[in-house]
């Protein structure tokens, strides 16, 4: 396998993984949190734990929206 193929498939797989995780966080935030908790178990490698903590943040307010401009800006938070 040529180096170019390795690079191109690494990019494609990363893009697919990140896109899937993003959509999971929007459509089913609880599932993403569960996945994150699973990845943070101590019997996994440290990099998997780190990855789990990175994706632990649930998406928006849970409605899967975060698009309308009424959600919090970085300077403020918005709870119901």
């Amino acid at each position, binding site marked *: 396998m040529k180096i170019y*193929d390795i690079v191109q498939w690494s990019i494609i797989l990363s893009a697919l993984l990140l896109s899937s995780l993003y*959509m999971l966080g*929007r459509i089913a935030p609880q599932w993403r949190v569960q996945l994150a908790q699973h990845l943070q178990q101590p019997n996994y490698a440290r990099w998997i734990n780190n990855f789990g903590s990175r994706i632990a943040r649930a998406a928006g307010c849970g409605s899967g*929206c975060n698009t*309308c*401009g*009424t959600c919090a800006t970085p300077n*403020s938070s918005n709870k119901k």
Partner: protein
Amino acid sequence: MNMSIPVQRFPEHVALVGNPNCGKTALFNLLTGSRQKVANYAGVTVERKEGRCLVAPQRSIRILDLPGAYSLAATSLDEAITRDVCFGKLQGEARPDLIICVLDATNLRLHLRFALELRQLGLPIIVALNMMDAAARRGILIDIEKLEQALGMPVVQTVAVKRGGASDLLQMLGGAMPIPPAALGGDIDLHAEVRKILSSAVIVPRRTGAIDDAIDRWALHPIWGLVLLATVMFLMFQAVFSWAAPFMDGIKSLIQWIGLSLSSALPPGPLRSLLVEGIIAGVGGVLVFLPQILFLFLFILALEESGYLPRAAYLLDKLMVGAGLTGRSFIPLLSGFACAIPGIMATRTIQNERDRLVTILVTPLMTCSARLPVYALLIGAFIPRRTVFDIFNLQGVVLFALYFAGVASALVVAWVMKYLRRDRTEHALLLELPSYRIPHPRDIAIGLWERASIFVRRVGTIILSLTVLLWFLSSYPAAPADAIGPAIDYSFAGRIGHALQAVFAPIGFNWQICIALIPGLAAREVAVSSMATVYALSAASENAAAELAPIIASQWSLATALSLLAWYVFAPQCLSTLAVIRRETASWRTMLLAAAYLFALAYAASFITYQVASRWS
């Protein structure tokens, strides 16, 4: 000797309260550096917002921005939030230790009553006399010392829309807390008390509202007012197409150049396909509509700032009551033009539960900005760019008609719901008409920046993610060596599209449209990026982002295009909207009802449109 020294208490947790449209959120933004939405009408804030404000070196306080309330005796859901926070009864929210009561200095006759009512809380209160610049312009003179004495609370002057307009308030927040005012006796007539305070501390010139009255004679006229409203709306949609065209062409050329550069730089293979036929075609195909969205919001923001919108609500009240809605539904429905979600949340200002439910159910029929790329794509592809009567842009006329169809269908649905229910009582509209204000360019610029950020963020997150996933589903499994048709026919997406076509064939949708409808459930404009990706993969075109409109113009019939437009006037293709309906009504049944009736309406409208257009064309 053991002496007890009184300890100075400093505020840590402060709540901003006041009547609607007194500038609480503008003050909150000024104090905390936030950018929460502000507008010149009541009911913009419907839930609590929180931020931090640095009041002294190393010391910050927590500030809550609460929905506007006319009284602590709440009559609507948003007022109930304010009441519960003030009394410390909102679950998970500590009672504030200081209240900032924001008063509109130009309208003290109305706002002072609430300030007096707040005395019963037993909390320290600072009165922020906001809009002092507007009061000065109108010649309103306020004796601050006398007002402080009469209210029993410290009073500071603020101009929330100007930088540094809250410096006195910040200074006071950095110091010790004021003494809580004594509660007024239960038998005191608050209106009489307000009149007494006004006569001693405030001088209002007689003709303070002369300009407003002169404008209102035309703007609120039963005939000319409606003509003016229709003209404003019509011009808005004309401008969306006419003014945005050069900017759109610029973005299109840039996307085309990026696509061609990548095509020539990368060897053929899956990475090039992902970047050129997937991301550039899909994301670029949506990004091109940014100028149109910004021009639409330029008008909406200017109207919001000017104070014209509550007048429009007043004008349309009779029509809305006739359709089974209330004038109070106007602001939620108007918010629905940006996005159905804030519109549905804004229904919290409607006191009557039945009116609120009807408004929630019809708000998704308002044409949200996410539908604009779909409309613009189809109009650009099928409606010629020519003028009608030598004045009007035909594409703008069609866009106006589509927005009008959304509004008209909302009224018809509300009217049907009125007939289906037993309780047909009508509720009078009580609406505060704010003073006219020349829109502040800075506020408009911030508003447009916010809209552009939201749109670009959507493009860079949800649309990009779905485009990548759709590219994969449209590319794999790869076609067999002896394949006859295009490779996409053998992919997951191609098979799903062909399977769905059986359901949507009666309304003229081809399998490519069927594929686009699925990711369109997450966000409506994704349908455009999905079609761009699907057509790019089908046609092996290297510049489908720029070519999507001519491609569909050559491959679809006019009937199919009109049918898809009709579909998007009604379609409930936004899961977030359905989730918010569920959250706001606390009812799965209502959410399913909304989804079912919108889907049925969309299918029926598309079916009729397709069948009629097929026979005519």
